[in-house]
Structure formats: C-alpha cells, structure tokens
C-alpha cells in the first residue's frame, strides 16, 4: 500500500477509539509517567497528518504544564521524598510537618499544582479531540457513524449541524451589518452594554432564518432520497487498515499497563 497523504490519516473509528482511550486516561487518574507516554503517542498522528503547528502548540503547552506541576511538587513538598513513590511513612510524617509550613510559596504552589494537574489531565482529551476534528471530513464522519449502526435519528442532525455552522456565521455577519445600518449597537462595546437587547436582536433573525433554512434543507434532502427506508450508501470509502489496528494496539498497551500499575 503506497503511503499517500490520505493513508497517513487514521480511520474515523480509530480516532473515536483514541478519544475513548483519552477518556479512560482521565477516568483512571493514571500517574504522570504513563500520562506523558500516552500524550506523546496521541501527538504522533497529529504530526503524521501534517498538522505541525497545531501539534507543536499542544506539545509545548503540555510540557509547560508538566514543568509547572514539577515545580509545584518541589515547592509544596520541600524535600519529603521523591514524587510518585509516596509511601506510608511519607504520609505519616507529612501530617506532622504540614502544620507550620503554610507560607505563601506553598499556597502558590498548591494553586499552580491544582491548575497544572487539572489542565494537564484534560490535555489527552483535547489533543485527540483536536485531531479528530481537524482531520475528518463530513462524509467520512457520516460513513463511520452509519458503519457503527448509529440510528439515522442521530446521523441526520449531526450532518445538519456540521453543514449549518458556516451558514450561521454568514447570517451573523449580515445581521450585524443590518444593525449597523440602522445604528443599533454600532460601537465596539455596544453589544455588551445592552445584553438582553443584543440577544434578542441577533437571536430572533437567526431563528427566523433557521426555520426557513430547515424547510429548504428538508425539501432538498427529501429530493435526494434521505427519507427513503433501507440502507444508505456513502461516496467516501473508509477502511480499517493494518496501520489503524496497529496504532490502536500500540496506544492501548501503555494505558493498560499504567492502569494495572505496572508502568
């Protein structure tokens, strides 16, 4: 199989699997080492798909948070034994020497630690989510959902949502232009000054237009046969290649080891 740009992207179902793994990572509170390995693995497909800028930004953010977390460890711990191997003895004398050490640096360390642990835990999800969102086309997504036997009641709204976002942006610009023409909410902060009025003036035309578009789309979709019972086919072909399976396996192993406490 020739390595083309398309084949270097994973199958949509493999992407969903990665998302699931990232969620499991969050759920089981895997320790820092396992987390770092998983993050590195999750960043790989992003680079493989040619999203260098995006991938580098996420990588830098993750390592900055990691550094912050280590710094806060160092500050709050003030030398009570190395990080992850906290033993029972550590717990006991930790209780004893906490009393007087409530200085500003420790508080700052705690806040920084909470922030870094918190955001860092979200990072695997964010990375896989960014990957899934930026590299999947609508037809691939729909095809994958149909293959996974997601009911049409879910597939159709999903399709419409993705399709409708650009329309909303376009409508919003038109509405703002019309408002400016009438001298409503013209200034920079005018929208914020009258929040209720802005909400009404923007949302009502959007909703009006939404009802019209929904009617048009229904007619178009029914003409194309969306309402016909039976199986629907897709233009885009998706296949799970050996690479998808291999990558899924490679990502699963460290997670399983980390959850099992081996790593």
């Amino acid at each position, binding site marked *: 199989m020739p390595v083309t740009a398309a084949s270097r992207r994973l199958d949509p179902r493999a992407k969903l699997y990665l998302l699931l793994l990232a969620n499991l990572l969050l759920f089981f509170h895997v320790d820092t080492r396992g987390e770092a390995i998983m993050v590195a693995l999750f960043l790989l497909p992003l680079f493989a798909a040619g999203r260098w800028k995006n991938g580098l930004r996420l990588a830098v953010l993750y390592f900055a948070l990691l550094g912050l977390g280590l710094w806060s460890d160092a500050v709050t711990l003030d030398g009570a034994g190395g990080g992850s191997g906290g033993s029972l003895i550590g717990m006991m004398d930790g209780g004893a020497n906490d009393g007087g050490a409530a200085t500003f640096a420790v508080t700052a360390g705690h806040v920084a630690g909470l922030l870094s642990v*918190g955001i860092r835990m979200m990072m695997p999800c964010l*990375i896989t989510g*960014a990957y899934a969102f930026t590299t999947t086309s609508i037809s691939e997504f729909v095809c994958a959902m149909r293959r996974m036997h997601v009911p049409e009641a879910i597939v*159709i709204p999903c399709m419409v*949502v993705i399709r409708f976002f650009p329309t909303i942006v376009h409508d919003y610009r038109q509405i703002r232009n019309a408002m400016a023409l009438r001298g409503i909410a013209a200034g920079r902060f005018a929208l914020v000054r009258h929040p209720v009025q802005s909400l009404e003036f923007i949302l009502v035309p959007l909703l009006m237009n939404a009802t019209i578009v929904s*009617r048009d*789309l*229904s007619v178009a*979709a*029914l003409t194309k046969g969306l309402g016909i019972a039976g199986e629907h086919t897709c233009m885009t072909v998706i296949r799970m290649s050996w690479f998808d399976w291999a990558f899924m396996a490679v990502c699963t192993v460290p997670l399983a080891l980390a959850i099992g406490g081996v790593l």
Partner: protein
Amino acid sequence: MNQPNQPAVQSPKSSRLAVPDLISIGIFTALYFVCVCVATLVSTLIAGAGTIFLPAVAALICGPVFMLSVARVGKFGGITVMGVVIGLFLFVSGHFALSFVASVVFPLAGDLIARIGNYKNRVTILIGYVVFCYGLTGPILPLWFMKDAYVASLEARGKSAAYINDLFSQISVGSFFVAMAAILVCGLIGGWFGQRILKKHFVKAGIA
C-alpha cells in the same frame, strides 16, 4: 414564506420523528451549540476561573432556541436528540465521556416532562427546559474530578487526610451547590425570556 408551518412532505399527525423534524432539530442544535460556545466565552471572561457557571450562562441565553425548537418539532424525542447530538459533539471535541451521559439523561428527563403537557403547556415546557439545562453540567464535572485527582496526588506525596479535607471540603461542596442553584435560577429566567420572545416574534409571524 406563506406557509412556514408545513413540514415538507409528511402526514401532519405522525407522532414519530420524520426526516424534516430531524433536520429542524439539527439546525436548532447548531444554534444551541453556538449559544453554548458564546456562554463558554462569557463565563470564562466574566467569572475568571468560573467555568463552573457555564451551564448557568448557557441556560440564560439558550431559552429562545429551545422554545422555538419545541414549538416547531413538538414530538417526543426532539429534545432528547438535541441533547444526544450536543453530547456527541462535546465528546468528539475532547470533553469527558461523562458529559455525554449527562447530556443524554437530563434532556431525556426534560423531554418526558415537556411531554406531560403535550409540548403545548407553558409550565411543563419551562420545567423541561430547566431540566434540559442540567445536561450541560457534563463539561464542568471534571472540575470536581480534577480535584479528586489532585487530592490523590497530594495523598501520594504524603499529605495527611485532615489537611486535604481542610483545603478542599468547603470549596467543592459550596461551589457545587452554588453552581447547581445558579442553573436553576438562570434556567427559569432564560426559559421565561425564551417564551416571551416566542410570543412576541414567532407566534405573531405564524412560525411557532
């Protein structure tokens, strides 16, 4: 434009969701999603680290979208599908899987409540809306999970349980109830606002 109330090709009294209904739901879901994004922006700007008020802010501004979608679709399943699709999008955009569960369970409950009044009674729709709004608590639930993780890491590093309790007990319980109460209040206000907008603009235009 003259007959906006007719779904394109469908027997008028079918109680199941047909393709035109699903397309309407999709469009309202897109608008709802945009509102949620605006709410995310607002809640992070105004409240600083107060992402915990995200569902409350969303409840405040999503009223009109919800009310119009109920008026337009008015069948069982509409609200649920809206929640499920939002949950899927949250999941795919990298939110916690639990947010998916929340955005299925609460909209389903809201759907059932609105169904009592046959999607016509204003009170049941309003209550349904408030319940629906709790579906968005999913994205903020990790905040409490993060706290757990931080506590776990503190424990691993040898801090005593009493110390940890001191540090976190009030923050977590207090902020949790404040956030939940804020959703209730904002949901009521937002729903009322939505129904007012509906009456003022859409009923008159024959759309709702």
